[in-house]
Every structure is written in structure tokens, then in C-alpha cells.
């Protein structure tokens, strides 16, 4: 879609300004129902559009309407991370990924679970984003606003962040493409930190080619992020045949004694997509990854631990919610931090529990050891196959309010996605069909820095599935 639109811009069939107008109109039409945007930025969007129209140079994503998850810094624009803590916070600088998307028309900043802690945007301190396919269902999370915005044409593409599935799961729920790059492929500088050994910004798009275009731009080492990796960035925008490749299908993913609650419709669509791979000349190999079932508890120890450390920055002094007349320093901390949402507080507590004296070895250190076992198992699997496939989530989009009573039932949503974060490998979700009228995400996981294979496979499948042609999202009901 990016390429088609840029061709139209180049041929003067449409101007950037007109494009921005069209997308801002869509926001006016659909966002009151969907609630995908925390902040809409017409001033910034039109300003960039005018610059682009004047310069007449169309490269990268210039002239293309985009949305950014509201935990990504854009200089002089509000960043809330969808938490009351940052209600009035204005970013003093641009995130590196934002600099790299120069020329993109900013439509606005999208809703998320507060600080990206969640899988449905129900933990947002402001509102719940609705799924454009069925507004009684969640859009997924934490990048639910970004996924809903792209699915409903309120932005051509968006950025999300993925710590345990936060790009892939909402993309899957909303019937769009969501790519989590390798940890270190795209810079974390300017993101509101969550789990620093796992966080990854990446694209949410309507096509595989668009995901490749955006990934191309945001990839590469950054001196401002010491964990970004100085490694060659291949041309992701050229797709090669996948004939003769080997795909691993982990048997644990479909074992009801290990993974509870895999929806029958999801299973059917995923296995039908595996058949498509065979038809495309891919050899399917059943693999066993017994440690992968421990990725979820590992994630829910390591992530809260890193969260509890990262969230100490919210001290009520330098930025964020504060109390103006504290009794003393401790009172300043406590009254300011009271503005955190419940899930934020819970994760800080769990992290401090896992790191506290007496429990460090049993929880945090243990989780880091099991992380090693999961990584080794992943390496061994990639000796046998080129990529791994499976569902993105056990179910299609669930009902609003359905999973909010028990935090663990919400965590189980991440069962298929967290392994890629724990191992630092890239993974994508592409729409592969519908279950009960709701999109189903198909996940493809590859070796570290092998996004190329993921995109080649996704592109081949996208042509074969023709999701957008087969299933149209009816926005007139919104």
C-alpha cells in the first residue's frame, strides 16, 4: 500500500495534504467508536504534508499517514503511555525510530495498556480500544490502538512495541500484519521502557511489503541504544521463493495437556495454513520444544523484575504525576506513584518479590537459567528447520471484560508469543483466516536477524491466502 500511494504521490494523482485529509476524516468517523487514539495530531500531520508536497521527494515513508503507539517519543508531542502517571508529559526528544520515519505524516499517538503491561488495552488508564471486526471484542494489546488504527484505515501503517507479543497479538486480533524484529535490530531509544532485555519496536501494516518497507527504515545500530546490534541490514523489500525450505511445527503448541484453551477455529485455520506451505513447496517437520512451555512463567518473572527496576524513574520529581506539597521525600514518592494503574502496581510488586533477598535465586535467577535452556532448545530446532510456525494466540479476539478478573488468564494469551522475546528472535503475525467472524493470526518465527526468511514466507503465504480479498471488514457499521 505504501508503494502504491507513493506512486500516486509521484504522479501527482494525489497530494500528501489530500492523503492526510482523507485519513484524518477516517479518524473523525471511526475513532469515537474504536477509541484507538490517545492524541490526534492534525497540526503536525499537515505541517509535514506541506513540507513533503513542497519538496516533492517521495522516499521511505514520506507523505504516508502513520500512527505511533503512545509509548514512543515524538518531540513536543504528549506521551502518556496510556497511564495517568504521564497525563501531562510532553516528550523533549524524538525516539530513534521516529527520526528514521522522517517524512511520515503523524496522525496521532495510539492507545495501549498502561506502559504496555497487558494484552487487551483494558489496562489503559483512559479507555478500551475496540476491535474493528466486532466492537464488543478487544483489539488486543498492548499495541491495540495501533492495530485497530491500521485495520480501520485511520493510518496506513503504525509502530507498536513488542515485549511479549504486544505487536503480534493485536495484529492477529485485528486482521493485519505485525512484525517483531530481532532484539537489537531496531533501537529502543525513546521508548517508555518496559522489559529492557525484551522490548522491540516494530511495524503494524496491512501488507507484508509495507512491513518490509518500515522494517528497512527502522533497522540498524544506534549509538543511543547500547543493545542495538551493528550487523548488516539486508534488503527486506525483495522477496524470494520459499520452495525447498523447512518449517518446524512444535507438537507442544497443539498438546491440550500443555496449552489449555486452543480454540478449534484457530487450530483449523493454522493447520490449513500449514497445508498451504506444503503446497508452496515447504517441507513440514514436526519438532519438539518441551522447554517452550516454560517461556510464559519465565517471562512473567523476568519482565516484572525489569519493570520494577525501570519504573523507579517515576519518582514524582523530574516528570510525571506529582504531589505539590509533600510531607517529606517518601510521601512525595508514595503519593506520586499512587497514580499508577492496578496492573502497573501488580507488576512492580511481583518484580520486587522475585528480586528480593531470599527469593532472588528461586525466581529471578531460576528464570534466567530456564531462559538459557529455552534459547539452547531454539538453536537446536533451527539446526533442523529454517523457521517455526504456529498460532499467534490461542483464541481470536476475546470479549471486553472477559479476562480481567484473573491476571493469569490474561497472561495465558501470550503463551505462543513470549518464546520469541525470551530468545530474542524475530517473529511475525499474518492474518490467515477467520474463526467465528474474527481474524486468526498465523505466527512465523526465525533465527536471530533472519527477518528476511520471515518476510519471504509471509509474502508467499499472503499471495496464497489473499486475506484482504477474501474477507472484507465492514466499517459502515461503526
Amino acid at each position, binding site marked *: 500500500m505504501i508503494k502504491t500511494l507513493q506512486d500516486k504521490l509521484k504522479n501527482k494523482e494525489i497530494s500528501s495534504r489530500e492523503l492526510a485529509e482523507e485519513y484524518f476524516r477516517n479518524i473523525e468517523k471511526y475513532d469515537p467508536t474504536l477509541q484507538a487514539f490517545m492524541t490526534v495530531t492534525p497540526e503536525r500531520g499537515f505541517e509535514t504534508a506541506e513540507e513533503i508536497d513542497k519538496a516533492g521527494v517521495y522516499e521511505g515513508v514520506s507523505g504516508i499517514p502513520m500512527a505511533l503507539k503512545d509509548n514512543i517519543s515524538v518531540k513536543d508531542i504528549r506521551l502518556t503511555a496510556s497511564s495517568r502517571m504521564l497525563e501531562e*508529559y*510532553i516528550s*523533549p*526528544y524524538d525516539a530513534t525510530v521516529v527520526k528514521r520515519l522522517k517524512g511520515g505524516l503523524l496522525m496521532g499517538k495510539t492507545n495501549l495498556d498502561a506502559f504496555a503491561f497487558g494484552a487487551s488495552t483494558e489496562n489503559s488508564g483512559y479507555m478500551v480500544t475496540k476491535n474493528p471486526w466486532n466492537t464488543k471484542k478487544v483489539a488486543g494489546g498492548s499495541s491495540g490502538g495501533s492495530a485497530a488504527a491500521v485495520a480501520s484505515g485511520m493510518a496506513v501503517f503504525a509502530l507498536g512495541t513488542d515485549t511479549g507479543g504486544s505487536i503480534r497479538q493485536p495484529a492477529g486480533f485485528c486482521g493485519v500484519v505485525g512484525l517483531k524484529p530481532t*532484539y*537489537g535490530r531496531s533501537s529502543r531509544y525513546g521508548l517508555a521502557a518496559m522489559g529492557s*532485555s525484551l522490548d522491540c519496536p516494530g511495524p503494524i501494516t496491512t501488507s507484508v511489503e509495507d512491513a518490509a518497507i518500515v522494517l528497512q527504515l527502522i533497522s540498524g545500530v544506534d549509538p543511543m541504544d*547500547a*543493545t542495538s*546490534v551493528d550487523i548488516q541490514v539486508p534488503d527486506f523489500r525483495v522477496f524470494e521463493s520459499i520452495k525447498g525450505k523447512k518449517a518446524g511445527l512444535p507438537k507442544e503448541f497443539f498438546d491440550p495437556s500443555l496449552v489449555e484453551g486452543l480454540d478449534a477455529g484457530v487450530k483449523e485455520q493454522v493447520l490449513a495454513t500449514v497445508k498451504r506451505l506444503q503446497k508452496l513447496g515447504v517441507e513440514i517437520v514436526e519438532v519438539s520444544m518441551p*522447554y517452550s512451555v*516454560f517461556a510464559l*512463567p*519465565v517471562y*512473567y*518473572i523476568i519482565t516484572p523484575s525489569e519493570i*520494577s527496576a525501570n519504573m523507579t524513574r517515576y519518582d514524582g*520529581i*523530574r*516528570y*510525571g504525576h*506529582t504531589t505539590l506539597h*509533600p510531607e*517529606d*521525600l*517518601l510521601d*512525595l*514518592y*508514595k503519593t506520586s*506513584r*499512587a497514580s*499508577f494503574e*492496578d496492573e502497573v*502496581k*501488580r507488576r*512492580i*510488586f*511481583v518484580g*520486587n*518479590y*522475585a528480586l*528480593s533477598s531470599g*527469593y532472588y535465586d*528461586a*525466581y529471578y*535467577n*531460576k*528464570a534466567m*537459567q*530456564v*531462559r*538459557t*535452556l529455552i*534459547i539452547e532448545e531454539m538453536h537446536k530446532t533451527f539446526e533442523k528447520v529454517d523457521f517455526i510456525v504456529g498460532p499467534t494466540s490461542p483464541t481470536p479476539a476475546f470479549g471486553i471484560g472477559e479476562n480481567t478478573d484473573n*491476571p*493469569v488468564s490474561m*497472561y495465558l494469551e501470550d503463551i505462543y508469543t513470549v518464546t520469541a522475546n525470551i*530468545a*530474542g528472535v524475530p517473529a511475525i503475525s499474518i492474518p490467515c483466516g477467520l474463526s467465528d467472524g474474527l481474524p486468526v493470526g498465523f505466527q512465523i518465527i526465525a533465527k*536471530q536477524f533472519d527477518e528476511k526468511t520471515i518476510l519471504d514466507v509471509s509474502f508467499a503465504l499472503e499471495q496464497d491466502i489473499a486475506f484482504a480479498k477474501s474477507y472484507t471488514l465492514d466499517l459502515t457499521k461503526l
Partner: protein
Amino acid sequence: MKLTRTELKHLEGLSRIAIDASKEEEYFKKLSTIVDYISVLSKVDTEGIKPTSQVTNLEKGLRDDEVTPSMSQEDVLKNSKHTWKGYFKIPKVIE
């Protein structure tokens, strides 16, 4: 392992977060469910396994020690309500 109410109090202190008395029961219940869930890892044999904290095996994480332009003082302070003559201001800690 089971979370105890004394531990929850201890965590509130460590986290610099006070829970409203009316919500204490709910927090205790939900946190207990999470602690029960993550305790499943005790079943995994990790004897002699090295812990992983960095997944891409990076070793050099330092930039050259060069002075480069950074954020202006004005930008650094503009999101704070506790400033005084170009500084952050906090309540008196030592009497």
C-alpha cells in the same frame, strides 16, 4: 511458595507504593495467583545452567568518551513541577 500478607506489606515499602486498604484483599488474591503460577519453574532442573540476561551476546556496550550536544537544561526541566533556579527541587531530606 505462597505469598504472605506480611510480604505484601514489605513489597509496598520496597516499591514505594501504598495500596488503599479497601483494595488490599483484591491485590493479595491476584498477586497470590501470579506467584502460584510462576512457581511452576521450580520443577525445571537447572543444575549447572548459566543464567542469561543478554540475548545477542553483545560484549562492548560503551560509546567513545566524547562530549556531544545533549538536551538543553530547559528541555530537561520542562516536565517537572519541582524546579528552582535551574535545579530539581525535593523536600528536605536532612534536618
